[in-house]
């Protein structure tokens, strides 16, 4: 990678005026050095992003298997026909839709409240920022294990519910009940991820000039007015970014499901990525899994384009 082309020691006078002929020669060596520096990254991105992306398209129309003595055979749209007749795939779409519709506003909203709470440089705010951020540096696998434990029928959360309501309410068996399994996973996911987006809101808040608030104070604006007419418009760029990233993250839901419920009970928590992993890895049907991945990608793309369009209109 060290194709360093040492230049001959420069003669001051011509260098300063940059004669064109000399420049041609240097630009050729510059081009070669530049390509050499670009090569590793470009090669790796091609190998591990562009080729798999093209493969996702190609394999989706074949019966490719992960490990198979036979070469993959073109099967047309068979995988897609099967996919759209697959009840658990629709259940997965429904589940991630439900998850995203609740998590996106909840997480974005709570993160904004937290950002406003710790924005002022008052004593102690650094401590709170650190504490709010702790779950973010804890991996989702660990968080899932911890909450799997807390969500048990005789676990911490139900004990607290019992104590707080003086035994009036008995908590459900959160993860083994089809009506509470998804809400339980939603609550936990927001708990883990909200600190991340708090930081992004914070960096947005800090771009709003302080004199706008001073001017508003002089005009006697209320807290709500200041938020409505200064903070909220000032955050429009941050807002659309946060909405897009939380949505994509929400639609890609996998780790929590894999550790906590394996899609159950009765498919109530299965997700698109979980279905793709089940068919592509557990059942080794790469072709079918690629079809799922392709449909998933189209959905993600459509949603982020629509979201971006909507937020641009408003801004």
């Amino acid at each position: 990678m060290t194709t360093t082309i040492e230049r001959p020691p420069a003669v001051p006078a011509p260098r300063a005026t940059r004669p064109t002929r000399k420049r041609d020669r240097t630009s050729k060596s510059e081009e070669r050095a530049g390509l050499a520096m670009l090569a590793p990254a470009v090669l790796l991105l091609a190998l591990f992003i562009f080729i798999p992306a093209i493969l996702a398209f190609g394999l989706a129309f074949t019966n490719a298997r992960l490990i198979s003595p036979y070469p993959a055979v073109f099967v047309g749209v068979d995988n897609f026909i099967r996919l759209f007749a697959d009840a658990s795939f629709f259940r997965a779409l429904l589940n991630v839709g439900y998850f995203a519709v609740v998590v996106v506003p909840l997480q974005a909203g709570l993160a904004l409240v937290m950002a406003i709470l710790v924005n002022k440089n008052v004593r102690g705010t650094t401590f709170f920022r650190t504490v709010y951020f702790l779950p973010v540096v804890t991996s989702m696998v660990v968080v899932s294990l911890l909450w799997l434990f807390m969500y048990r029928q005789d676990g911490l959360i139900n004990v607290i519910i019992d104590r707080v309501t003086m035994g009036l309410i008995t908590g459900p068996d959160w993860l083994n009940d089809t009506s509470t399994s998804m809400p339980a996973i939603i609550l936990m996911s927001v708990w883990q991820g909200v600190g991340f987006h708090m930081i992004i809101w914070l960096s947005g808040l800090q771009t709003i000039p302080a004199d706008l608030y001073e001017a508003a104070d002089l005009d006697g604006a209320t807290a709500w007015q200041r938020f409505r007419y200064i903070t909220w418009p000032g955050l429009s760029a941050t807002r659309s970014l946060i909405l897009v990233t939380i949505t994509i993250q929400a639609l890609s839901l996998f780790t929590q499901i894999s550790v906590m419920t394996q899609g159950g009970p009765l498919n109530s928590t299965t997700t698109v990525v979980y279905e793709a992993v089940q068919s592509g890895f557990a059942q080794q049907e790469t072709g079918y899994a690629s079809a799922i991945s392709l449909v998933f990608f189209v959905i993600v793309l459509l949603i982020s384009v629509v979201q971006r369009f909507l937020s641009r209109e408003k801004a």
Partner: protein
Amino acid sequence: MAIAEVAPAHARQVPPRRKTAKKKRVLGLGGWILRAGLGVLFLFPIMFMFVSSLKPDQQIFGDLSSIAAFLPIGNISLDNYVAVFDRVPAARFLINSIGISAITVAAGILVNSLAAFALSRMRVRGKAVILTLIIATLIVPFETLALPLVWWVNQLPSLQLTEFGFLFTKGWIDTYQVQIIPFVANAFSIYLFHQYFESIPKELDEAARMDGAGWFRIYRQVVMPLSGPAIATVAILTFLPAWNSYLWPLMVVQTEELRPVMVGVQYFFQLNVSWGQVMAYSTLITLPVVALFIAFQRSFVNSIASSGVKG
């Protein structure tokens, strides 16, 4: 906390001001209660995890109904940790994850900064197209590529050292390289380095070129030493997913000796579950990241904030 200023500025006199001052305090107090309440909500589960890792299972369940659940009191010992190392090859998993993350971070810094340097500093034909293509890959979530990628890495030739010397084998499944190489080049890291390099005055490399410095030397001795914050950001944004990676190694690593920490959690659910041990293992694999976070807090926060420019 936002404070309501009721009286208009020109009307401010002594009595109203006292009134607003009082209101300020009350709202401020509400703000502090809210802050503290949220703090408890985020901190207590993590404390519960840590404290439970020190207790025998029976006591964990016994303590649930009181504040003792969050306090390291009673029968405290490191027995669960000892059991973790006995029950699973935890040391091996930790070493694997440390190695994989360290190499991914180091190689990522080198490869991505070199590419960004060329894109920012040098005249290369078609670099605008290359930069656009690199940025375009940011819209593809890894989850959509994972399954085709498993199939693809299974087709790649692999060079392996055997007792007969080097040997080409088919497939990267069950190797260290499959956990490292696909994650070295990263479009977002290139983008971050590129942004940062653009802010370093180009006169500096002009001057170095006058002194006869080659491009690689300018990269190494002029630009990189000035790019500490960008390097820290990329290091953190590469380290976190490398350490936390779960979906990928779950699929491509079957051999126990090659597994990273996150996949190791499966071992605890095979026989009868000991929650004390699960919490001990969870604490063990979280501690390195939390320690790094506490040590480099400012850099962590900056790197997350910088991911806000994505898009």
